Protein backbone atom coordinates (compact mmCIF):
# COMPACT_ATOMS: atom_id res chain seq x y z
CA UNK A 1 0.00 0.00 0.00
CA UNK A 2 2.76 2.42 0.97
CA UNK A 3 4.70 1.74 -2.23
CA UNK A 4 1.61 2.12 -4.38
CA UNK A 5 0.92 5.47 -2.78
CA UNK A 6 4.52 6.50 -3.49
CA UNK A 7 4.25 5.32 -7.11
CA UNK A 8 1.00 7.19 -7.65
CA UNK A 9 2.44 10.37 -6.14
CA UNK A 10 5.56 10.22 -8.34
CA UNK A 11 3.46 9.43 -11.41
CA UNK A 12 1.21 12.44 -10.79
CA UNK A 13 4.27 14.69 -10.36
CA UNK A 14 5.71 13.17 -13.56
CA UNK A 15 2.61 14.03 -15.59
CA UNK A 16 2.50 17.51 -14.03
CA UNK A 17 6.14 18.25 -14.89
CA UNK A 18 5.70 16.91 -18.43
CA UNK A 19 2.72 19.22 -19.02
CA UNK A 20 4.57 22.12 -17.40
CA UNK A 21 7.62 21.57 -19.64
CA UNK A 22 5.35 21.88 -22.67
CA UNK A 23 3.44 24.90 -21.42
CA UNK A 24 6.15 27.27 -20.15
CA UNK A 25 7.28 29.95 -22.60
CA UNK A 26 10.89 30.37 -21.47
CA UNK A 27 13.24 27.76 -22.97
CA UNK A 28 15.59 27.69 -19.95
CA UNK A 29 12.66 27.01 -17.62
CA UNK A 30 11.43 24.29 -19.95
CA UNK A 31 14.79 22.53 -19.96
CA UNK A 32 15.07 22.70 -16.17
CA UNK A 33 11.55 21.26 -15.80
CA UNK A 34 12.62 18.57 -18.26
CA UNK A 35 15.48 17.78 -15.87
CA UNK A 36 12.95 17.44 -13.06
CA UNK A 37 10.95 15.06 -15.28
CA UNK A 38 14.07 12.94 -15.84
CA UNK A 39 14.79 12.78 -12.14
CA UNK A 40 11.24 11.66 -11.30
CA UNK A 41 11.52 9.03 -14.03
CA UNK A 42 14.78 7.90 -12.39
CA UNK A 43 13.01 7.59 -9.00
CA UNK A 44 10.27 5.46 -10.55
CA UNK A 45 12.75 3.15 -12.27
CA UNK A 46 14.81 2.75 -9.11
CA UNK A 47 11.65 1.89 -7.20
CA UNK A 48 10.67 -0.71 -9.80
CA UNK A 49 14.06 -2.42 -9.46
CA UNK A 50 15.66 -1.29 -12.72
CA UNK A 51 18.63 0.31 -10.98
CA UNK A 52 20.89 0.32 -14.05
CA UNK A 53 18.34 2.25 -16.08
CA UNK A 54 17.71 4.61 -13.17
CA UNK A 55 21.44 5.30 -12.88
CA UNK A 56 21.72 6.08 -16.58
CA UNK A 57 18.67 8.36 -16.41
CA UNK A 58 20.09 10.22 -13.41
CA UNK A 59 23.48 10.83 -15.04
CA UNK A 60 22.44 11.41 -18.65
CA UNK A 61 18.85 12.64 -18.43
CA UNK A 62 18.92 14.78 -15.33
CA UNK A 63 22.61 15.72 -15.47
CA UNK A 64 24.35 16.08 -18.81
CA UNK A 65 21.40 16.70 -21.13
CA UNK A 66 20.06 19.56 -18.98
CA UNK A 67 23.50 21.19 -18.94
CA UNK A 68 23.91 20.76 -22.69
CA UNK A 69 20.43 22.15 -23.41
CA UNK A 70 21.05 25.20 -21.19
CA UNK A 71 24.44 25.73 -22.87
CA UNK A 72 22.78 25.66 -26.28
CA UNK A 73 19.95 27.97 -25.28
CA UNK A 74 22.45 30.58 -24.02
CA UNK A 75 23.87 30.70 -27.53
CA UNK A 76 20.52 31.34 -29.18
CA UNK A 77 19.13 34.77 -29.81
CA UNK A 78 16.01 34.61 -27.70
CA UNK A 79 13.01 36.66 -28.64
CA UNK A 80 9.95 36.06 -26.52
CA UNK A 81 6.56 37.51 -27.26
CA UNK A 82 6.00 38.72 -23.69
Amino acid at each position, binding site marked *: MGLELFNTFILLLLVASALLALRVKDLITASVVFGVYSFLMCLLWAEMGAV*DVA*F*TEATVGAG*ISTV*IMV*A*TIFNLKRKSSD
Partner: protein
Amino acid sequence: MDTEVPNMVTAVLADYRGFDTMFETVVVFIAGLALLAILKSSSSSKRIKREHEVEAEPDLIVTNTVRLIVPVIQIFAFYVLAHGHVSPGGGFQGGVLMGASFILVALSWDLDEALARFSLNRCMTVAALGIFIYAGIGLLSMALGGEFLDYAELHKILPVSPEMARYHAMLGVEIGVGFTVAAIMFALYANLSSGGRLRDGL
Protein backbone atom coordinates in the same frame (compact mmCIF):
# COMPACT_ATOMS: atom_id res chain seq x y z
CA MET B 1 25.95 -19.95 -16.55
CA ASP B 2 28.10 -18.77 -19.46
CA THR B 3 29.74 -16.01 -17.49
CA GLU B 4 30.75 -15.19 -13.93
CA VAL B 5 29.32 -11.68 -14.05
CA PRO B 6 26.70 -11.22 -11.28
CA ASN B 7 24.99 -8.18 -12.82
CA MET B 8 22.80 -9.64 -15.57
CA VAL B 9 22.19 -6.23 -17.18
CA THR B 10 25.89 -5.74 -17.82
CA ALA B 11 26.26 -9.34 -19.00
CA VAL B 12 23.53 -8.83 -21.60
CA LEU B 13 24.75 -5.40 -22.70
CA ALA B 14 28.47 -6.08 -22.95
CA ASP B 15 28.51 -9.77 -23.85
CA TYR B 16 25.34 -11.27 -25.35
CA ARG B 17 24.50 -8.02 -27.14
CA GLY B 18 28.10 -6.83 -27.43
CA PHE B 19 27.82 -5.99 -31.13
CA ASP B 20 24.89 -3.68 -30.40
CA THR B 21 26.72 -1.88 -27.60
CA MET B 22 29.83 -1.46 -29.75
CA PHE B 23 27.93 0.38 -32.45
CA GLU B 24 26.07 2.42 -29.83
CA THR B 25 29.50 3.67 -28.82
CA VAL B 26 30.27 4.38 -32.49
CA VAL B 27 27.01 6.37 -32.69
CA VAL B 28 28.11 8.53 -29.74
CA PHE B 29 31.48 9.08 -31.46
CA ILE B 30 29.87 10.03 -34.77
CA ALA B 31 27.50 12.43 -33.00
CA GLY B 32 30.53 14.20 -31.51
CA LEU B 33 32.29 14.33 -34.89
CA ALA B 34 29.19 15.66 -36.66
CA LEU B 35 28.71 18.42 -34.10
CA LEU B 36 32.36 19.38 -34.45
CA ALA B 37 32.10 19.54 -38.23
CA ILE B 38 28.87 21.59 -38.22
CA LEU B 39 29.98 24.14 -35.61
CA LYS B 40 33.52 24.47 -37.03
CA SER B 41 32.21 25.55 -40.42
CA SER B 42 29.41 27.81 -39.21
CA SER B 43 31.09 29.63 -36.32
CA SER B 44 32.33 33.16 -36.83
CA SER B 45 35.50 34.05 -34.97
CA LYS B 46 34.23 37.41 -33.76
CA ARG B 47 32.84 37.51 -30.29
CA ILE B 48 29.22 38.55 -29.80
CA LYS B 49 28.56 40.18 -26.44
CA ARG B 50 25.51 38.59 -24.86
CA GLU B 51 23.06 40.51 -22.71
CA HIS B 52 23.51 38.48 -19.52
CA GLU B 53 27.29 38.83 -19.49
CA VAL B 54 29.27 40.65 -16.83
CA GLU B 55 33.01 40.95 -16.35
CA ALA B 56 33.86 39.08 -13.15
CA GLU B 57 36.46 36.82 -11.61
CA PRO B 58 35.40 33.23 -10.89
CA ASP B 59 33.65 33.11 -7.53
CA LEU B 60 35.93 32.07 -4.65
CA ILE B 61 33.38 29.88 -2.86
CA VAL B 62 32.28 28.12 -6.04
CA THR B 63 35.81 27.42 -7.27
CA ASN B 64 37.00 26.11 -3.91
CA THR B 65 33.98 23.83 -3.55
CA VAL B 66 34.57 22.50 -7.06
CA ARG B 67 38.25 21.96 -6.22
CA LEU B 68 37.09 19.69 -3.37
CA ILE B 69 34.31 17.90 -5.21
CA VAL B 70 35.87 17.15 -8.61
CA PRO B 71 38.34 14.50 -7.32
CA VAL B 72 35.46 12.78 -5.50
CA ILE B 73 33.35 12.72 -8.68
CA GLN B 74 36.27 11.33 -10.69
CA ILE B 75 37.03 8.57 -8.17
CA PHE B 76 33.32 7.70 -8.09
CA ALA B 77 33.36 7.58 -11.90
CA PHE B 78 36.25 5.09 -11.83
CA TYR B 79 34.41 3.05 -9.20
CA VAL B 80 31.21 2.94 -11.28
CA LEU B 81 33.24 1.97 -14.35
CA ALA B 82 35.28 -0.77 -12.67
CA HIS B 83 32.48 -2.15 -10.52
CA GLY B 84 29.90 -2.10 -13.31
CA HIS B 85 29.63 -5.86 -13.68
CA VAL B 86 29.09 -6.48 -9.96
CA SER B 87 26.75 -3.62 -9.03
CA PRO B 88 24.67 -1.25 -11.18
CA GLY B 89 26.78 0.97 -13.35
CA GLY B 90 29.20 0.43 -16.17
CA GLY B 91 31.09 2.20 -18.90
CA PHE B 92 28.34 4.53 -20.03
CA GLN B 93 27.46 5.87 -16.58
CA GLY B 94 31.10 6.07 -15.46
CA GLY B 95 32.02 7.90 -18.64
CA VAL B 96 29.21 10.40 -18.24
CA LEU B 97 30.28 11.09 -14.64
CA MET B 98 33.87 11.64 -15.78
CA GLY B 99 32.73 14.00 -18.54
CA ALA B 100 30.51 15.83 -16.04
CA SER B 101 33.49 16.53 -13.77
CA PHE B 102 35.23 18.39 -16.61
CA ILE B 103 31.99 20.23 -17.44
CA LEU B 104 31.84 21.32 -13.79
CA VAL B 105 35.34 22.80 -14.09
CA ALA B 106 34.28 24.61 -17.26
CA LEU B 107 31.15 25.97 -15.55
CA SER B 108 32.84 27.26 -12.42
CA TRP B 109 35.99 28.76 -13.99
CA ASP B 110 35.69 29.13 -17.75
CA LEU B 111 36.05 26.93 -20.79
CA ASP B 112 39.74 27.74 -21.30
CA GLU B 113 40.54 26.38 -17.84
CA ALA B 114 38.84 23.06 -18.63
CA LEU B 115 40.31 22.85 -22.15
CA ALA B 116 43.79 23.38 -20.68
CA ARG B 117 43.25 20.11 -18.78
CA PHE B 118 41.45 18.18 -21.53
CA SER B 119 41.99 19.77 -24.93
CA LEU B 120 39.74 18.99 -27.86
CA ASN B 121 42.49 17.13 -29.73
CA ARG B 122 43.02 14.90 -26.72
CA CYS B 123 39.24 14.45 -26.42
CA MET B 124 38.94 13.07 -29.92
CA THR B 125 42.04 10.88 -29.49
CA VAL B 126 40.63 9.37 -26.27
CA ALA B 127 37.22 8.87 -27.91
CA ALA B 128 38.76 7.03 -30.86
CA LEU B 129 40.93 5.01 -28.47
CA GLY B 130 37.81 3.84 -26.63
CA ILE B 131 36.28 2.37 -29.79
CA PHE B 132 39.69 0.93 -30.69
CA ILE B 133 39.83 -0.89 -27.31
CA TYR B 134 36.31 -2.30 -27.81
CA ALA B 135 36.87 -3.44 -31.38
CA GLY B 136 40.37 -4.62 -30.48
CA ILE B 137 39.03 -7.03 -27.86
CA GLY B 138 36.50 -8.27 -30.42
CA LEU B 139 39.16 -8.78 -33.08
CA LEU B 140 41.50 -10.43 -30.58
CA SER B 141 38.90 -13.07 -29.77
CA MET B 142 38.42 -13.50 -33.53
CA ALA B 143 42.16 -13.99 -34.01
CA LEU B 144 42.14 -16.67 -31.31
CA GLY B 145 39.68 -18.77 -33.28
CA GLY B 146 36.29 -17.61 -32.06
CA GLU B 147 33.77 -15.22 -33.51
CA PHE B 148 33.86 -11.43 -33.30
CA LEU B 149 33.36 -10.38 -29.61
CA ASP B 150 33.33 -14.02 -28.46
CA TYR B 151 35.23 -13.29 -25.26
CA ALA B 152 35.41 -16.91 -24.08
CA GLU B 153 38.25 -17.52 -26.54
CA LEU B 154 40.41 -15.15 -24.54
CA HIS B 155 41.04 -17.89 -21.96
CA LYS B 156 43.73 -19.14 -24.33
CA ILE B 157 45.91 -16.13 -23.51
CA LEU B 158 44.61 -15.31 -20.01
CA PRO B 159 45.36 -17.69 -17.13
CA VAL B 160 41.66 -18.09 -16.26
CA SER B 161 38.62 -20.21 -17.14
CA PRO B 162 36.46 -19.25 -20.17
CA GLU B 163 33.80 -17.85 -17.81
CA MET B 164 36.30 -15.61 -16.05
CA ALA B 165 37.76 -14.60 -19.43
CA ARG B 166 34.34 -13.23 -20.36
CA TYR B 167 34.24 -11.42 -17.02
CA HIS B 168 37.58 -9.68 -17.65
CA ALA B 169 36.83 -8.94 -21.30
CA MET B 170 33.59 -7.26 -20.22
CA LEU B 171 35.60 -4.98 -17.94
CA GLY B 172 37.83 -4.23 -20.93
CA VAL B 173 35.00 -3.23 -23.23
CA GLU B 174 33.36 -1.16 -20.47
CA ILE B 175 36.62 0.78 -20.17
CA GLY B 176 36.49 1.39 -23.92
CA VAL B 177 32.89 2.65 -23.72
CA GLY B 178 33.83 4.85 -20.75
CA PHE B 179 36.73 6.48 -22.65
CA THR B 180 34.55 7.35 -25.64
CA VAL B 181 31.56 8.60 -23.65
CA ALA B 182 33.60 10.75 -21.25
CA ALA B 183 35.53 12.46 -24.04
CA ILE B 184 32.52 13.00 -26.30
CA MET B 185 30.33 14.40 -23.48
CA PHE B 186 32.95 17.02 -22.70
CA ALA B 187 33.55 17.77 -26.38
CA LEU B 188 29.79 18.28 -26.88
CA TYR B 189 29.62 20.73 -23.99
CA ALA B 190 32.76 22.59 -25.06
CA ASN B 191 31.48 23.08 -28.60
CA LEU B 192 27.86 23.87 -27.77
CA SER B 193 28.56 26.33 -24.96
CA SER B 194 30.95 28.41 -27.06
CA GLY B 195 29.24 28.00 -30.44
CA GLY B 196 32.26 26.17 -31.87
CA ARG B 197 34.78 28.91 -31.01
CA LEU B 198 36.14 26.96 -28.02
CA ARG B 199 36.81 30.17 -26.12
CA ASP B 200 35.16 31.90 -23.14
CA GLY B 201 32.25 29.45 -22.86
CA LEU B 202 29.00 30.43 -21.20
